[in-house]
């Protein structure tokens, strides 16, 4: 055996073995039990374009989260001042980063100022100023805190969405944060994408608010502490939507974060599904107090600023459970129960990208992609065999090794195979042959100069080396940039392409060369089949 053949052959052997090892989980449907443990379990994932599914990009309206926390501060201050008998005219959120407090006298203002400094040290407190004869001051949330709140809201939204999806039941979902305020959700193989999207995108903020019967919804002037909301009801037969405006107290009595559970139940009398909810101890106590104090009055169940229903409180409800009924189907009731259990999103989300591929199209793409790939490989194999004879077959062997290694590498990285990824593999077939063509043409030239097969082979490889390097590096540059900036399918293309280029460099410079060396070494070949 020629010098240096041994290690090269062993290296190829090791790579072949590794490739098969890593490919096993992909190829074998059910792994034997002894496999798990040390041996690789990752497999090549199919992209959504190949297996069908939904890819969503959602934008979290983080500004709303900051505003929400300012609203909380305002309510909290109101409560605190009330409990300390400090009289104030108005406390409310002002714009997107301030809470303004308007007081009657300078004396209270000093006390309030001190109180705020103690309670909210991180807020920037303005000196008192005059506002139409009253004493006013503002708290401003610091930029750092606002940024923090925004960041947390995205994190919370991500967790909530993950909870909802888990409860909805999707196998292998991907939920990731992207950039500052984007969340990417991938739901492979999902059957009813529309329903899933509605479930995920819903804010699901639940409030119980008292109805203000004393204010007419049509009066046009609504006091600061009340708001006009609408009760929407859909006629199940005609599908007509009716909207009834109702004025409610702005401040909720109880909010959805006091819930511990929500379940779908069926009303035995009308056979109608409803959602039964359970409060935690604080919620139960509040609910008990509120219902006791307001028997005979109406309260509104408000979901995402729409009144879901506004029943009359018939009697005091203790025990901490209540029910939300309405014109539900079993599905809508189940979805509402899921979002209530998983909790509200800290801020509204907007779906800014939605790519859905049906399972039939995905299967069609796999079949056609593989079929096209196979034909492409076959055409190239035949061409090489005819054009370069035995040497062509060696090149073909190199190409097959290339594909094997690439698949193995994809499996080892747990990479995702997309349709453009298959295209990249097919392209790689062409390129893998190219390196050999460059080498073979060189060898032919050297042979024409009258060199012996062995000498022609060596100088052919030597002279082709730089050319091959150059051509691979340029492709690698493109692939790297595509990887950095591409999304979804394009990224898949870039991964396959760059791995392919690196692997091809190995097989063409080491793999096929060692095969030639072996051939030429045995029995002093006089003529080369090229």
């Amino acid at each position: 055996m020629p010098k240096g053949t041994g290690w090269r052959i062993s290296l190829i052997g090791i790579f072949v073995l590794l490739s098969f090892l890593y490919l096993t989980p992909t190829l074998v449907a059910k792994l034997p039990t002894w496999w798990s443990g040390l041996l690789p379990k990752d497999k090549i994932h199919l992209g959504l374009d190949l297996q069908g599914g939904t890819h969503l990009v959602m934008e979290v309206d983080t500004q709303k989260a900051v505003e929400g926390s300012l609203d909380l501060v305002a309510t909290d201050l109101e409560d605190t001042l009330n409990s300390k008998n400090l009289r104030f005219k108005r406390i409310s959120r002002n714009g997107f980063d301030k809470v303004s407090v308007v007081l009657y006298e300078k004396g209270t203002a000093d006390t309030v100022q001190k109180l705020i400094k103690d309670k909210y040290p991180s807020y920037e407190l303005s000196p008192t100023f005059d506002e139409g004869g009253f004493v006013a001051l503002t708290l401003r949330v610091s930029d750092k805190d606002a940024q923090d709140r925004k960041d947390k809201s995205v994190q919370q939204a991500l967790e909530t969405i993950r909870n909802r999806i888990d409860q909805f039941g999707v196998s292998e979902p991907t939920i990731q944060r992207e950039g500052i305020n984007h969340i990417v959700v991938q739901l492979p193989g999902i059957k009813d994408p529309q329903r899933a999207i509605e479930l995920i995108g819903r804010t699901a903020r639940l409030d119980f608010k008292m109805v203000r019967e004393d204010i007419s919804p049509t009066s046009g002037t609504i006091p600061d502490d009340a708001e006009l909301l609408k009760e929407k009801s859909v006629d199940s037969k005609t599908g007509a939507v009716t909207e009834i405006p109702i004025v409610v107290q702005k401040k909720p009595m109880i909010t959805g974060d006091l819930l511990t559970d929500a379940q779908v139940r069926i009303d035995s009398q009308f056979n109608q599904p409803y959602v039964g909810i359970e409060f935690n101890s604080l919620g139960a106590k509040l609910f008990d107090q509120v219902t006791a104090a307001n028997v005979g009055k109406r309260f509104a169940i408000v979901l995402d600023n729409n009144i879901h229903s506004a029943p009359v409180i018939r009697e005091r409800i203790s025990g901490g459970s209540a029910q939300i009924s309405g014109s539900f189907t079993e599905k809508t009731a189940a979805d509402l129960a899921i979002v209530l259990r998983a909790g509200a999103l800290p801020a509204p989300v907007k779906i800014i990208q939605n790519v859905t591929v049906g399972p039939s199209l995905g299967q069609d793409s796999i079949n056609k992609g593989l079929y096209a790939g196979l034909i492409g490989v076959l055409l190239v194999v035949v061409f090489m065999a005819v054009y370069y004879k035995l040497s062509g077959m060696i090149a073909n062997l190199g190409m097959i090794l290339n594909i094997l290694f690439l698949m193995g590498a994809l499996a080892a990285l747990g990479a995702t195979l997309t349709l453009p990824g298959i295209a990249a593999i097919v392209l790689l077939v062409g390129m893998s042959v190219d390196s050999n063509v460059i080498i073979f043409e060189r060898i032919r030239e050297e042979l024409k100069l009258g060199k012996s097969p062995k000498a022609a082979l060596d100088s052919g490889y030597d002279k082709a080396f730089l050319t091959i390097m150059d051509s691979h590096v340029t492709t690698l540059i493109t692939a790297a940039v595509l990887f950095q900036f591409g999304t979804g399918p394009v990224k898949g293309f870039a991964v396959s392409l760059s791995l392919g280029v690196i692997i091809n460099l190995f097989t063409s410079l080491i793999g096929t060369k060692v095969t030639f060396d072996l051939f030429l070494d045995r029995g002093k070949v006089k003529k080369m089949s090229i």
Partner: protein
Amino acid sequence: MELLGKTNIDFIGMRKISFIISAIISIVGMIGVIQVGRGAANMGIDFSGGTSMQLKFSKPISIADARTALHKNGIAKADLQEIKDGNKLLVKMAGAAVGKPSEMVQTAFKKEFADNAFTVESSTEIGPSIGDKLRKDTLIAALLSMLGIIMYIAWRFDFKFGVGATLATMHDCLAMFAAFYLMNKEINLMFITAVLTIAGYSLTDTVVVFDRIRENLHKNLKGAMNTIFNDSINEVLSRTIVTSTTVFLAAISLFLFGGEVIHDFAFALLVGVIIGTYSSVFVASPIVVILENRALAKNTKTA
């Protein structure tokens, strides 16, 4: 087997004709690029934002009927396209918000074609902000990869070769834009991917030719530029053709059998392979010859 024996074609001598052809292609390509910039070309919704759906009907459906059905139900602006096999219909609506339009289309068809059930094979909705981001990212990607490649070539060869390679690569990209613009095919992310891939491929091709030219320049310091370049191109000609053939074979099988999703992508690759091969012989090298000759003339003048 050998397709070509020893050839002796005067490629450099043909530069007048080839430059005219390339100039025309490039100008059409530039018009295409300008139209893309203005948003007047057939833009994919991944750049413009909007909704695109692929529907599969159980019975054949005519585009005219589908259009009236959409009009009746308040969808005035939709781009409809038929896919030959299997009663498929592509509906594209630019610049619309995410969520509503796809529902509207489905309700419209359900109402108007009650006896012709359909399934949504795929739907893509992209908000305008994503479209903007993608366009920006793509532009950066294209510029960066160009820059990287030029720097690499300039480092491996010299500036004149760098210019030749860059111009040839730009020529190839423009040619692909020209083809897609003239055929009114959709410019989308996949097309840009194909363009960048071909940029890499065409450079590979050019580099192989340049490598040989450089080698021959070192061997033969006194010969006329035209001869050295011509000889080099002829020497690597059979490699150029064989490689192009294999890549072409792979791409055409994707084009013919790969299915509708990658049909246009494969088409772009095909155009690119052909034009990339042409440009490495007829565009890149002649430009370097001109530059080298000019440099030589300057040197002799000063000497």
